[in-house]
Structure formats: structure tokens, C-alpha cells
């Protein structure tokens, strides 16, 4: 009998378990739109092939006395129609199950993942392989689909000579890079390590009416990627910072005045694989916090965007991130903390997460422009992703020239999304809205029609 493989849950993933709640399930959704209605049987075949390749996705989450750990399992995933609210809970401590689900709806292939398993980049590798396998079996006559199982991996710097088996359970990139003090530490010494816990100004927070059954409010805006990029470039700001500034402006317009807290703050995840080459699909990102205080200077979108960019650049440098993560890893590895029982660790992490949330208004995440293997590129249209949210969140992704900006929130109110969309349409950009029905009124309207 071979023993089951297991691995302790990594640094960043623990927070997702502690911070998980009824409204914020810590599940994220990635979807790809095809040029035809998805065939469930073929999707199941594609899933089986992809699943065999990604051993990490076989993992189930178990609880030990001091840590959570991922353990290999014999479970097999089944594709299902998309019949649950978006980002419905996946992890249930009382029922061991896989930490992801694959669904289809009309022409969309949907992948939902519990964030403790993987991050957006890791999930994108899985989805790419899944869609490639699906297209391969859907269009068997098309001869030139090469073995694309490594397509996304090779796209990562320095990954070409890594073994594919690296998509294994065991690779914890945090440990690989940040456990030992780095020689570059002296160089990074003057880089200020940011921590949102030390924030002194009171940060504005959006409040609202919670959804009737705590489901995530999700609205997607789709526009031409080029049009929005032109808009950002004209102001000399990167796309992410431009959209963040616009998000701030939308929040400002939709609130009835900030009151005493005129500071808006956003947390932005940074993919660490771009600086620290890794082919592990497990979580490997860090977050950077940027903020803007209104009423203390120019508050137009371009100025705010430039100012956010100035804050973001140094904080998102490999030196600053490395320093921050080495420190976090050191804390995590400290003997004192290691012997704290897991339930108590959860309480501590929950407390830290709560304190951290108080310093944040919104979250922004940008997976950027996705490149798919050439052979399937023409069959795939817009791609989108969004995350369950404890505060208003914006997730951006582009493919096939279409930029999808997805908003999620625990509240039913859509005023900030309205302001955001109207700003874009005022600039002459065509915007398409897609929304999941959330309130009793919206669902009743669907039944009537």
C-alpha cells in the first residue's frame, strides 16, 4: 500500500481558511467563452485528461492539530451545469471534497476554485489546459494542436527547463524563496515595508444591504480592451492604476459624501512568479496596498491614477516584496507560533484579517491579457474572472480584444458599478453588462418573462 502524499498548507493560503465566512466564501471563478454551446460530455473527457495532469487538484483539505494540510485523494471531478450562485462555498470541514468545480453554461466553461488551493495564475493554467483539451476533442479534424499541456507554464520566465511534475502538491514556492535570508537584503534595507495595519488615517468603507441569501453580487462589464487601454495611455497611467482610480471615483460618486473618512484604499495582489520563477500552481502572490485621500490636491482620475502608480511601483518591486515575504515567512516559521493549535491560529488570523480589512475600501485584481495556445485562440472569446468579496471588488482580465471588468460585492447595491459604466460610456466606449440575479425582485422578474 502506498501512503497518501500530503503537504502543509502554505503561507498565504492559511488566511483564506481563517477569513472565510458565509458572505465571503473565498472562492473565485474563471470563465472562458467559446464560439459554440459547450458539450458537457466532451468537457468531462477534457476534465479527466487535465485532472490527471494536475496532481495538486486531486488534493482535499484536512485539519491537523497545528496546521491545515493538503492530502492526495482518489476523488474524480464531474462537470455540472452552472446551477448555484456564483462563488458558492466549496470547502466544507465536515465533508471532504475536491477544492474546485468545473461547470458549463451556454457557451461558457467555468472553473471555480477555493482560494486556499490555488491563485488566479495557477487556475488559469488549469483552465487553459482544460479548454485546449476540450477544443481538441471538439474539433478533431483540426490537425495542428500540439501538446499544449505546458503552454502556459513555458510562458513563465525561467520555467522552460522545469519538470512538469512540478505541478505537484509538494512545491511551496514561499518556502523555496523566502525561508532563508537573502543576500539582497542589504540592498532592500531602505525599501519601506508597508503594512496596512499601521495605517493612521480612517479609511472610507462601503456599506450596504446584504444579499438575501448571502450570495455574491456579480456584475461584468465588457468593453474593447484597446479603447480602455487608449484611455489609460492618454493619461500616462498603467491600465490597472487607471481602472483603480476610476473605481475610486465611482465609489466617491455613489457615496453620499465621505464624512470624516476621505481616504480610499485598495489592495492589489501581485503575482510573485514574475519575479521569483515558479511553476507551482499553488498560491504564490503578495498584496500591495495603495490609497488616495480626497480633498488634498487634484482628485481627477488621471492624477489619482498617477499618484497610485507612484505608490505601487516601489512596493511591487522584487526587493520590497522579497523583504516583506521573508519577514512574514519568518513569523510563520517562528517556534512560538508553530506550537499554537490550529483553531487558535484561526482566531488570531481572523483578528489580523479583520484589522486589515478596516484599512481597505476596495480590492482590485488584474490578471492582464491572456494568451492562449494558437490553435484554440480563435475558438475562445471573452474570458473573465471574479472573486467572492467582503468589500466591493474589481477583477480585470482581457482576451480576444475584449476587456472584462467584473465587480463583486456582498451588498445588493450597484451604484458604484453604474457610475463606473457611465464614465466609460461617456468617453464613447461601448459597454455590455452581464449580471447575476441576486434580489427577490430581480429573480421574480426572470420568472415573469
Amino acid at each position, binding site marked *: 500500500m502506498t501512503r497518501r502524499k500530503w503537504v502543509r498548507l502554505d503561507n498565504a493560503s492559511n488566511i483564506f481558511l481563517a477569513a472565510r465566512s458565509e458572505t465571503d466564501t473565498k472562492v473565485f471563478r474563471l*470563465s472562458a*467563452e467559446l464560439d459554440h454551446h459547450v458539450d458537457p460530455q466532451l468537457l468531462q473527457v477534457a476534465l479527466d485528461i487535465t485532472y490527471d495532469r494536475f496532481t495538486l487538484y486531486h488534493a482535499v483539505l484536512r485539519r491537523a492539530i497545528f496546521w491545515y494540510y493538503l492530502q492526495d485523494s482518489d476523488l474524480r471531478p464531474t462537470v455540472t*451545469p*452552472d*446551477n*448555484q*450562485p*456564483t462563488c458558492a462555498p466549496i470547502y466544507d470541514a465536515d465533508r471532504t471534497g475536491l477544492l474546485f468545480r468545473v461547470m458549463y*453554461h*451556454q457557451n*461558457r466553461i467555468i472553473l471555480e476554485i477555493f482560494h486556499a488551493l490555488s491563485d488566479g495564475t495557477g487556475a488559469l493554467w488549469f483552465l487553459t489546459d482544460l479548454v485546449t483539451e476540450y477544443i481538441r476533442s471538439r474539433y478533431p479534424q483540426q490537425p495542428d494542436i500540439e501538446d499544449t499541456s505546458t503552454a502556459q507554464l513555458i510562458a513563465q520566465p525561467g520555467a522552460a527547463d522545469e519538470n512538469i511534475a512540478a505541478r505537484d502538491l509538494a512545491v511551496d514556492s514561499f518556502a523555496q524563496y523566502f525561508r532563508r535570508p537573502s543576500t539582497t537584503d542589504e540592498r532592500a534595507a531602505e525599501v519601506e515595508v508597508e503594512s496596512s495595519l499601521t495605517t493612521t488615517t480612517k479609511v472610507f468603507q462601503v456599506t450596504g444591504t*446584504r444579499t*438575501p*441569501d*448571502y*450570495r455574491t453580487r*456579480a*456584475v*461584468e*462589464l465588457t468593453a474593447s480592451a484597446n479603447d480602455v487601454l487608449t484611455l489609460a495611455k492618454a493619461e500616462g497611467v498603467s491600465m490597472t492604476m487607471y481602472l483603480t482610480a476610476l473605481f475610486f471615483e465611482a465609489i466617491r460618486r455613489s457615496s453620499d459624501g465621505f464624512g470624516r473618512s476621505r481616504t480610499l484604499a485598495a489592495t492589489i495582489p501581485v503575482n510573485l512568479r514574475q519575479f521569483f520563477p515558479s511553476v507551482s500552481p499553488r498560491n504564490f502572490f503578495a498584496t500591495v496596498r495603495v490609497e488616495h485621500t480626497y480633498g488634498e490636491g487634484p482628485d481627477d482620475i488621471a492624477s489619482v491614477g498617477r499618484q497610485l502608480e507612484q505608490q505601487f511601483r516601489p512596493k511591487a518591486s522584487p526587493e520590497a516584496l522579497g523583504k516583506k515575504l521573508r519577514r512574514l515567512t519568518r513569523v510563520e516559521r517562528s517556534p512560538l507560533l508553530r506550537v499554537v493549535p490550529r483553531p487558535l491560529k484561526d482566531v488570531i488570523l481572523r483578528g489580523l484579517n479583520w484589522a486589515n480589512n478596516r484599512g481597505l475600501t476596495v480590492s482590485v485584481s488584474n490578471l492582464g491579457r491572456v494568451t492562449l495556445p494558437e490553435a484554440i485562440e480563435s475558438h475562445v472569446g471573452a474570458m473573465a474572472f471574479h472573486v467572492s468579496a467582503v468589500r466591493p471588488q474589481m477583477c480585470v482580465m482581457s482576451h480576444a480584444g475584449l476587456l472584462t471588468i467584473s465587480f463583486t460585492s456582498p451588498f445588493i447595491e*450597484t451604484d458604484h*458599478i*453604474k457610475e463606473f*459604466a*457611465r464614465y466609460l*460610456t461617456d468617453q464613447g466606449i*461601448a*459597454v*455590455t*453588462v*452581464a*449580471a*447575476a*440575479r441576486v434580489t*427577490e425582485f*430581480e*429573480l421574480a*422578474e*426572470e*420568472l*415573469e*418573462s
Partner: protein
Amino acid sequence: MKRCHDCSVEIAGDWQHCPLCQEPTRGHASPSPFPAVALSFSRRRIFRLLFFGSLAIILGSFAVQLFLGRGPAEFGAVRSVWLGVVTMWLVAVMAVRKRRNVAKSIVYLVLIVGLVCLYWDYLNGWQGWSLNYAIPIVCGSSILALLITVRSMRIEVGNYIVYSGITILLGLLPIVFLVFSWVTTTLPSAICVAVSVIALVVIQVYRGAEVRHELAKRLHV
């Protein structure tokens, strides 16, 4: 695709109203990338069920007391505890329901506690403790509570003035107790009336103009 003219956006799915601004949409429906998933539960419905369920049990509990006879001999420890529990429950339900308007919830509280005390006193063979002590003390304290709340929470005058007025009028009610000699212990009633009069004066002096403005607005015919 459907279209919202106010937002100038195209909308995927069969939306009669714009999901962003709730204005009616025009055009033909297209398929939505999100299926409509029925609610697994509705917090609003659960709260309504809890509220009306609680109210039924509370009122039922009070009503059934009449059939159990009255007088100190009939009134055992079980009934005391029972009434205590349902009164607490009623107060909690009202506090939750009226939590968004502090002034209003104080009026409800005074009315509930006052009426329950009267009824309790009646069930217990009418010893007069409700008029002598309970009602004047509750009214007097609620006025103090109101003045403190209004001051510390910086509520807008228009949002509390009507209910503050009602609270103060309730505080003047013990004058009737005194005039008709319904009370044997006069001190609590006298203090309550005094507090009410002082509160009236304070409000007239500091907020007189706003009060008159609000009254003119609300009594406008």
C-alpha cells in the same frame, strides 16, 4: 440585446430593468451568461417569520394570563418567570426592529414596559406598584436617556423631534396620577413630571426654532 438608455449600456439577459440603475430597459432579450438561481433562503422572510412568530407567542402568553385567574394567591413563581421572559422577548424584538431610529425605539420601549407593568400589577391583584413606581421611573429615565442619546449621537432634529415630543408628553402623564390621587407614593411621579418640564424647557430654549419649523411642516394642512 436589451439596452438601458440612462446608462447607455447593452445588457445581456432578459432584464426588464437595468441591473445598474433599475430604469426600464428596451430592446430584445439575449441569453444571459449567468443562470437565474433561486434563493436558497431569504433573510427578509426569515426575519419576518421570526418577528410574527415571536409576536404571536408573546401576545398569546399575555392573553392566557387572564384565564389563569388574578390575585397574589394565584400568582406563583412560574407565572412571574414566564411574564418576565416574554416581556424581555418583546423588548428585544422591538429593540431590533426599531434599531435604526433610537428616538422611536425609546417611545416603543416606554409604551411596552408601561403597559406590561400595568397589566402585571392588575393580574397580581392591583397593589398599585406600577403607577406608584414603575411608570414614573421608566418615563423619567427614558427622557434622560433621550437627551443623552440626542446629544451624543448628533442626530438631526427632524429625525427625533416628534418621538422626543411623545416621550416628553408621556413623561407628563404622571400629573394625572397626582391630580386624581391614584398614587400613594407621590415622589417618583413628581420627579418624573419635573424632569419632563425641564426637558421641555431645554428643548424650547436650544431647539425652539427647529421644533416650530418641524411642527409647522408635519402639521401642514
